[in-house]
Each structure stands twice: as C-alpha cells, then as structure tokens.
C-alpha cells in the first residue's frame, strides 16, 4: 500500500518587498510559454541571448536569423526583428542583412542539422569571409524537430531513429567537430564551446555570449562562433536530469568545453 502523496507547500516570504530582486527573466524574452520539451537547453540558450541583448542595450539594432529545426520559432520568444531562414541558409541570410545594414548587430541561431549538415557550405564560407556576425550553434547531437534522427554531430555508437544500432562510423562516418574545424579559418575571430546544463556552465556561456556580441559591436574582427553543447531529453530518451548527467559523463569527453580560438591580443 502506497503512502498518500503530500503536496509540498511553497514557502511564502513576508518581507519580499524589502528584498532585492537579484534575478528575473530578461525583458527581451517575450513572455510566452516556450514550445520546447521540458528541460531543453534551447530555452536556456534563447534566454542567454536575450539577457545579452538587454545588457548591451542593443534591442533596437539587433536582427536575428532563425533556422529550421526545433528553434524555427525563435522569433516567438525573442522580441527583436527576425527573419526565418530556409534550412541551412541562416548565415547566408545574415550575410545579406549585415552587408546592407553594416551598423546593425546580426546573429544566427542554428542547430546541428542546420549548421553542420545541410548548411555546411554556407557556414564555412560565411566564416571564411569573416562576416562580422555572431553564430550561435546549439549542438545536441540529434535532429530534434523531425523526431530524433542521426545528426552530423551524433557520437559514435549513439542510438537514434536512423542509427537504430548506434552510429556505426564505418558506414555513417564520424561526428563533425564544427568549432575546431572552423577555428582554422582566418575569418573566425572568436570560437568557443560552452554548455548550459548547470548553473556554473550557464554563467560561463553567458560571458562567452556577451563577448561574442561585444566583438561584433566593436567591429574589429570576423565571425564570432558560440557553440552550445546541449541536451535533447526527448530525442535521447532520457529525463532532463539524466540527459544533463549524460553530457557530463559522455559528451564533453568528445566535445571539450572552453575557448577554441581567441581574438588576437592587441
């Protein structure tokens, strides 16, 4: 016989009005229920970018480019002018915007299928031209939107709906390390790999995002590339907590976190 469930009660605070509000959602993040699955890193990444835009006070000058993938509706949450790109073409669209409006802040938000498979050519050539934009690359090793198929970034052995026995590198190739690949391009100004699975990693990722946008505002270098290694609880068939644990246990060994290319010292 199971014990009757006891509903935990939310502790109230009587002198809340005398306390300092030390954290709340950024204003530029539109107050709307997100469509992402519970525990999805996309939501955190969205929030980080909006925090960055608020802190740099660049809402009026920023134009975002949304991709195809789970984050196809990014403009539902980001209260800035945005364009929805075709699959893989986000950096081409961003190039177009930046070339005719060079004083605006332009960024793309892309997943791994978008940036590292169908849009590989656009990614490489945009960065090789050193377009002064920010690329936010959310890498969760899977095609989330279409139902959990193998992505170019899926780890060897990982089971997906199109690699039912695990990714076999003999027939399906190896996962692409996009950040390392593009870091050798002269047009890449700042390349970093971050995560948003813990408070500590979120703090670091935020700093990286701030830097990337700041570099664009300074207009000194080329493309800033922020990879965010994220989870996909639904696609990975794990709970959010398990998926974040899996990142620590398995993924970061392959996708090492940290800065990969820093701007040259002045």
């Amino acid at each position, binding site marked *: 016989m199971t014990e009757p469930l006891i509903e935990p009660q939310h502790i109230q605070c009587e002198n809340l009005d005398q306390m300092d509000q030390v954290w709340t959602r950024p204003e530029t993040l539109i107050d709307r229920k997100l469509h992402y699955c519970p525990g999805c890193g996309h939501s955190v990444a969205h929030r980080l970018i909006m925090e960055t835009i608020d802190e740099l006070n660049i809402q009026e000058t920023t*134009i975002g480019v949304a991709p195809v993938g789970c984050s196809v509706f990014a403009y539902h949450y980001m209260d800035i002018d945005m364009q929805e790109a075709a699959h893989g*073409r986000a950096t*081409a669209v961003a190039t177009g*915007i930046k070339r*005719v409006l060079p004083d605006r802040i332009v960024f793309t938000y892309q997943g791994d299928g978008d940036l590292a498979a169908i849009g590989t050519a656009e990614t490489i*050539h945009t960065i090789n031209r050193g377009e002064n934009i920010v690329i936010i690359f959310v890498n969760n090793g899977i095609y989330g939107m279409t139902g959990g198929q193998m992505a170019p970034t899926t780890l060897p052995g990982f089971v997906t709906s199109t690699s039912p026995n695990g990714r076999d590198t003999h027939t399906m190739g190896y996962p692409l390390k996009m950040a390392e690949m593009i870091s050798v391009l002269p047009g890449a100004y700042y390349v970093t790999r971050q995560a948003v699975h813990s408070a500590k990693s979120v703090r670091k990722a935020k700093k990286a995002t701030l830097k990337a946008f700041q570099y664009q505002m300074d207009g000194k270098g080329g493309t800033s590339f922020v990879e965010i290694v994220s989870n996909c609880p639904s696609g990975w068939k794990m709970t959010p907590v398990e998926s974040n644990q899996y990142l620590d246990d398995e993924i970061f060994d392959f996708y090492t976190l940290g800065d990969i290319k820093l701007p040259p010292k002045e």
Partner: protein
Amino acid sequence: MSEKLLMKGNEALAEAAIRAGLKGYFGYPITPQSELLEYLSHHLNNRGGSFLQAESELAAINMVYGAAGAGVRTMTSTSSPGYSLMQEGVSYIACAEIPCLLVNVVRGGPGLGTIQPSQGDYFQAVKGGGHGDYKLIVLAPDSVQEMADFVYLGFDLADKYLMPVLILTDGALGQMMEPVTFPDYDVEKNKVDHSSWATTGKLTSRSQNVITSLHIEAEKMEDINIHLQKKYKTIQENEVRYEAINTEEADIIIVAFGLVARVAHKAMENANKKGLKVGMIRPITLFPFPTEILLTLSEKVDQFLVVEMNAGQMVEDVRLAVNGKIPVDFYGRMGGVIPQPSEIVDKLIQMDSSKTHSK
C-alpha cells in the same frame, strides 16, 4: 536622359540596376550572365551598394532574402542551372512577400545543357518554379534597351506588390551589344517605405518585425494563400504589357517573346513581302500573360503561330487564352538553337496554304 552608349545586354542591365538604387547584389558566376556579376563587382561598391560573390546560387538567393528583408533594393542574377538551385529561396521570398529583382539569363537545357540562348525556362518562370502556389511578375525584354528599362520597371513593381520580379532573358540578349540610353530616374522619388515590415532593428516605438514563410496552422496558411492569389489577380488585371504589330489586317498572328520575337518580326516582314497577311503579338509580361488580347484577336484572325526557343511552353498559355476558337500552331528550336527568319517564313507559308486547301 543619358547619352547613347553601346553596351552588352548584361552590362546595360547591371548599370540600370545601380541607377535604380541597387543596394545589395549577391550572385555566383555562370555563363552567359557573368558580365552582370563582373560589372557590378567593379561598380556597385563605390556607387552606394554592396556587392558580394556568394559561394553558390543557393547562398546567393538567401543573401537576397536577408538583404531584401532589410528593406533595400536587392537583386541577384544567374543562368538556368543556377536558377534551378535558387528555387527554394524564391519560394520562401514569394511567401514572405519580400520585393527583389531576379534575373535569369536563360541557356539551353535540360541539365548542364549548352550556354547558347534558350527559352526552356518559361514554365519554371511563369508557373512559379519552386514549391507551393506562387507567381512572380515575369518581364521579357527583347533588346538591350529593354534589358535596362525593365530593371526600373521590375524594381518598381516589386516594391508595389511586395514580391520578386523576374527578368527572363537569354544568353544572346545578355551578350549582344546595342545602343542604350538610361532614363532619368529619381531613386529617392521612387523609394517605397518598407519600415512597417522590414527587419531593421526593433524600435521601442513598434512591435517586432518578423519575416517568415512558416505558418504552422493550416487555416492561417490558407489565409496567406488566399491573400497571395488575390494579389496575383490584381496583377493580372492591372499589369499586362504586350506589343501588338500589324494585327489589324492579319490572317495569321505570330506570338513570340524575347529574342525570338525579333526573329519572328523579321519573318513577319518577309512573309508580308510575299503577300501573306501576318501580324504579331509580343508578350512583355509573361506573368501576367496577355490573355485578353489573344482572345479578342481569335475572333478576327484565322490562325496563331507561337514561336519559341523550346519544345512548346508558352504555346500552352496561348491555347488556354484562345480556348479552342482557332488553330494554334507551334514552331520551335531547342537546346540553344535560334530559329532563323527563313524557317518561320516557311512555316507561315505552309500554314497559309493548308488553310487555303481546307477552304
């Protein structure tokens, strides 16, 4: 009016684009349109615009999407195989209702084909081209002068109807030189305010501008389609352009567009010298198609002859317009071969005599 210059069609088109206030050009080399790309690479950046050679036609059309979405005059140009690659982006742009100018300097296909002039891309141009129900306004110049003139017209129509306008020309018109003069065109006066929808940065004084072709609810998507179809109907009612020659006394009417219209014109002259009564309709807008004039003429003349550099594409639209009232014959050359006036005259003589026999 500028002085008279001797220019290639591709160069005249490029020069006109700069004079029409072009701000963003994105393109990829392909014969026979490369002069366009080259001309703009020399001149656009120091005349107020931004030129970029993209890594592919796919990237180029999406750069157009981005830049045109920022509310400035933007264009790309390519030739047949490249235009096929662009279709994805064109469909997105049509749905998102972004004005821009596209140029297809058509060459012989299918496949890699030849680099000689062709009209094999007619269907692709006027029936949409990419996925989904959409149309482009399609302008078909027949001279270097019109290559220039239709740039201004194209940008103005694009701005008016918020859609891509396609200049459908061919390798020969792109490569040949003829005298051209550029009209006085006031860029500022013709500027359309796109601030209500363009992504230029969300000012606090307005809500966000989003450019998208994604509308996940079927009903919403149907509304968008209804809106687009309404727009195309308005265009069909208001923007038909064509040239009519010798139609009053004619027994046979030739229908031809672009370069072939000039060959057909020569054929018409030669046939009339031989005593035939031949007139001509040259559609200038391929969409909207000049259906009405063809229907009206079908009451007066005996036969139509459609001449094209393809296997017979526009002839279907002529037959639809005429609706079975009179015979619509076809003469075409394919793969990059240009018909000679004499071939068309032979065809006209054959048509004329078969009519006499049947009487």
